[in-house]
């Protein structure tokens, strides 16, 4: 190969690589469409102002017409039934065990099953509903989780950092998601994220000031986001109100 040919080859390679790298700049006509799917997730555990907090949250979600999913500790739901019943139809309500305990810290399977089942029963009883969505306290699960959930009548599990599992055709199937702790990011972060096919799941817990949540939702509403609850992500009903 003559040097001239080698020079042409390398130059063409550099040009092709360069224009290939920048071509995505021109490939998407309107990146503002379609809307990014977002699920707001709230974990509710024992606190002094849990009743006020839940009522205020319900009011905010209603006011902004935002769908979301709330996971409530069974014992707290039993103690304050109104924190379950206060949420409207757009909000899925699920359980997160009875005692808000790390499931992986329990060695006995039957005790683990009892935690999951009792948690769900408590939430269902408090809200007069039938919930089939679950989030493990602290996101901690082990290999028993699938049988625990299926034996408890739970069809959706939102315990993870990068996925959620849905019960489909006799087994739990993984679905990708980008999960963020809401208090660690500003609304701008989510508004400037490029669209992705997976849903964003933004997680808050009941220690987060309700005013912060309101301003957060207020900012998010300005973006091209589509708020969904767990049922809408799953494609089937996860909270049936009686």
């Amino acid at each position, binding site marked *: 190969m*003559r040097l*001239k040919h080698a*020079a042409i080859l390398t130059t063409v390679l550099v040009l092709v690589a360069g224009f290939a790298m*920048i071509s*995505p*700049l*021109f490939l998407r006509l309107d990146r503002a469409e379609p809307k990014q799917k977002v699920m707001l997730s709230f974990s509710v555990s024992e606190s002094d102002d849990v009743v006020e907090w839940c009522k205020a949250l319900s009011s905010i979600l209603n006011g902004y017409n935002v769908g979301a999913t709330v996971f409530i500790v069974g014992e707290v739901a039993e103690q304050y039934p109104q924190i379950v019943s206060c949420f409207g139809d757009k909000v899925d309500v699920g359980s997160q065990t009875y005692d808000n305990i790390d499931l992986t810290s329990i060695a006995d399977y039957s005790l683990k099953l009892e935690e999951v089942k009792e948690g769900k029963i408590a939430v269902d009883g408090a809200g007069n509903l039938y919930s089939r969505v679950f989030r493990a306290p602290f996101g901690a699960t082990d290999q028993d989780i699938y049988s625990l959930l299926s034996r408890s009548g739970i069809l959706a599990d939102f315990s993870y950092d990068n996925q959620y599992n849905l019960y489909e055709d006799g087994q739990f199937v993984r679905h990708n998601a980008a999960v963020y702790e809401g208090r660690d990011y500003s609304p701008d972060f989510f508004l400037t994220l490029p*669209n992705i096919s997976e849903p964003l799941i933004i997680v808050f817990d009941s220690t987060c000031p309700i005013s912060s949540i309101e301003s957060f939702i207020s900012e998010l509403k300005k973006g091209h986001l589509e708020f969904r609850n767990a049922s809408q992500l799953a494609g089937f009903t996860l909270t049936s109100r009686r």
Partner: protein
Amino acid sequence: MSTTIELPTIELKLDVKGDMAATASPQAKPELDKEDDLYNHCHQRISKKGRILVSRKAWVVRAFTLAAIVFFMVYNIKVALISWDPLIIYSTLMPIHTLIVFVVGWLFFKNRAAGATGEVPEDLVSVIIPVFNQEGLIENVIRAIFRSSYSNLEVVAVNDGSKDNTGRELDLLAIEYPELKVIHQANGGKRKAVATGFYASHGSFVVLIDSDSVVDEKAIEEMMKTFSTSSEVGATVGNCKVLNADKNFLTKCQDAWYDYAFNIHKTTESTFGTVLCCSGCLAAYRREAIARFIPFWAAANVQNSDDRDLTSYTMASPWVKSELTSLSGRMMKAMSQYDDAEDRGLTSQTLTTWETVYVPTAVVYTEVPEKAKAYIRQQTRWKKGYIRSCFFVSVFFWKKNPLMSLVFYTEFMSTFTSPAVLFAIYFYAPFIQHLHWLPLTYFAGQLLIGLAAGFDYKFRQPEAKYWKYKPLMNMIASLVLPWLIVPALWTYRKNAWLTR
């Protein structure tokens, strides 16, 4: 008629502490005299190990700059990975390029001249000055050379058919300086003029100086010290400063640009021994590094890339050089047909075997265009030369240090892609894709990088007046200069001494 140029003088009033503190007053400590003397010449404080010293405040700004780039890069990667954004490679590559340039230039560069031990070599040095229509300034150029602290010089001025009084001025100077040899020839271009000087000279080292560039008296000595540190150094380039910086807005912007180009970008290139362009204003070569290429190089029909061509030849690897000499007669000939980057051409050829090194203590003052039209014409010429030189260098540069290769290929690539990127960012993104934040983000990024480089100029050279112009120059460089690829390619085969 001749004019007298007063070179800038520096008063040492450094606001630094500890071992960096210095003063030019008579009360200064004796051990600092040598450093202060050097500072008066190169305007930068150089440690005994060759590091360019700056104050602690400067390091804070540098650390902040690097942290900001890393933060942006990590954030960008995180977002892009979440969204599987196919732009991730490009949008990561560019900040990595900037990061490499800053980190290597700031943390790892050492002035090799500072590492020279023993006596300064006494080899005969041939100073070659190609001259065309340089009436007035040429006298100062020649006198500055003879004021040099390096004494074993022969100076060859080649008058390339000047139409003004340049020839007569040179003849008068030759009477005054017996070591000055003046050759008059019909106009044939800069390359032919340099070649004439090359063949008429005998030194084992060749210093090329543009006829509008005035060397500092220490410059040649510092370059020779650098050659003495390693037999692998085939070419060196001096620290070019703007002679007419005070003139207007454009020259002030160029002053800031020259500081970045030499004291940040070239320091990075030099750390790897691969300075890509030993600029024509002041470059020195071992004769053996370029002797075989000069015949091809001199057969030029255009006036660009002369310095880059020579540098590239000097630094290329042995196997490539073997390929070049056996297979590339036509290529060299084709490359040497053009004079739009004759300096780059020489550099390119030097790169084939040798190291090419930047010497910040070898200062030269050069005139820059004062009018926009002349500036655009110069930049178009340089871009042509850059493309021509990179076309050749891209064949072998991947064998060099991976980091420097990344810098080289990224810059070569962005020369072509920049106009498309600009179009996408400033028009396509806001008006078609409704991404209004993108042009603002890009603009702010350019501005901040310019500000960081400007601050760095001020910290290295506290008396610098035009460091504030670096952000503005960045705007010019990022918004205007990329489009010159169009006239550069359009007039690719056109040839002329475009500077005058």
